[in-house]
């Protein structure tokens, strides 16, 4: 109990941010029409590609000689990039059809 409260206190801002972010996430897409379900999912998919930042940080912090870390890190950055680039581009293509024909 003690430790939970302690954890809470030391991270209170982060926790606050998380909670607010959850509200924002939910509110922001609250009125999405069904036709946008797939593009929205795809766009959200691209956004969580932000995990690539973690992969970059891993690499930046690695020893230039730690080959295992470097190769795994390389892979991680590559995959993360795929997620980001592929995600945004595919979303954009899906959304092309919303252009008014005339």
């Amino acid at each position, binding site marked *: 109990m003690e430790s939970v409260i302690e954890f809470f206190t030391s991270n209170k801002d*982060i926790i606050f*941010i*998380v909670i607010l*972010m*959850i509200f924002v*996430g*939910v509110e*922001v*897409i609250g009125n*999405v*029409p*069904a*036709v*946008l*379900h*797939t593009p*929205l*999912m795809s*766009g*959200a*998919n*691209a*956004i*969580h*590609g*932000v*995990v*690539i*930042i*973690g992969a*970059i*940080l*891993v*690499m*930046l912090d*690695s020893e*230039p000689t730690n080959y*295992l870390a*470097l190769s*795994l*890190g390389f892979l991680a*950055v590559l*995959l*993360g*990039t*795929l*997620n*980001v*680039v*592929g995600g*945004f*581009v*595919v*979303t*954009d*293509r899906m959304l092309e059809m*919303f*252009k*008014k*024909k005339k």
Partner: protein
Amino acid sequence: MNIEIIHIVYLIASVTFILGLKMLSNPKTARRGNLIAAGGMIAAIVGTILLREEPVSPIIYSLIFGAIILGTIIGWLTAKKVQMTKMPELVSLFNGMGGACAALIGLIEFPNIAAHFPGKLGVVLAGMLIGSVSFSGSMIAWAKLNGTLKNAIRLPKYNILNTVILVGLVGYAVYIVFAQDYSLTHLYLLFTLSLVYGVLFVLPIGGADMPVVISLLNSFTGLAAAFGGFLYDNQVMLTGGILVGSAGTLLTLVMCKAMNRPLYSVVFGAFGEAASSSTSNGPQGNVTEISASDLAVQMNYSSKVLIVPGYGLAVAQAQHVVKELETLLEERGVEVAYAIHPVAGRMPGHMNVLLAESNVDYDKLKEMEDVNPEFAQTDVVLVVGANDVVNPAAKTDPNSPIFGMPILEVENAKSIVVNKRSMNAGYAGIQNELFFKDKTNMLFGDAKKVLSELVNELKNLD
């Protein structure tokens, strides 16, 4: 100094993510929203690399740039080349990549964190675990959509099995953290188990439910990214991840609701039971359903819509709402007319009587011979409660009771939407192969009710 500017960059990126998602939920702004979020993402990535204060070895820089360039090329090309119909599986694939990235971060950081910040070990493991599940699950989903994996494969009692594995997985991670037993064996075992769970989680699920599953896995990956943010005390990862986690979860729920399936059946793998119910006694295969809101967008962005009324329009007394639909579409610059089959309904002129009641202009009623050549230039044909009069069997099947009757050749249109309540036959008592065509979507429900929904969705579009 740089380290401080990066916080501003991250803040801006987070805001672009929020704005991006918000704009993505409105057809008018969706495309711009996607681009805005992408801009924020680029800023965050570039900032992370360039605003580094400690010196970094050029090898590492070149590796990073190499990976990014390679990833960009592959990602871009794949995304650009793929056919429209293959997009959902690609989303699943990319989602898996994100999960794998998170899992790899966990794998790499585990020894490091174990050594220096044992307090954050739970965070590392959580990120890795969720990332792995998301990765392997997405791969299975991809393979299913792809057609590589055809059927739902169910181990006996898979429900219980899956739950047991999940509980074991979590218990094992908790054990590692609290027992402070940081051997890599544990790590790899946990990793493998997570991958297995991801596979078993998605395997039993039928193809029709994949979109929901992908959305769920998508929010998992978001969560994994958020744990990464927690790990590095990195705000953009944290906020981006949480945002996707919460929005993704809501989206999953919304999609479930649209499919009329409660969430627990998603979580507990009770998927797919009802998935094949859309085929009826008719033998001709599967029909595709469309929702009123999808149809609203499709019609809104059409140039020409033809409405084919039939007896169902009369039964539902939907003449007033069909007129409202016409007015709304015309206001939006869509050309609308009615294609009247000479024997639609149950008495000569049945459709005329109805449509005159709702004041449809006589000029908008087209006779069969005049309208048949027009279908080829029509974006959407909306068949409202008609059946026999659009049944191609009249031309193709000499044994059919309606053989020889001229029909409205709706198949020539770019897209066909059929509204009726069920797969039941019409007056002639025969099934209609039109409903099973690729170009045809079914909009099930009483015509008055469903068209009212359609009208509402249209009104909400601006």
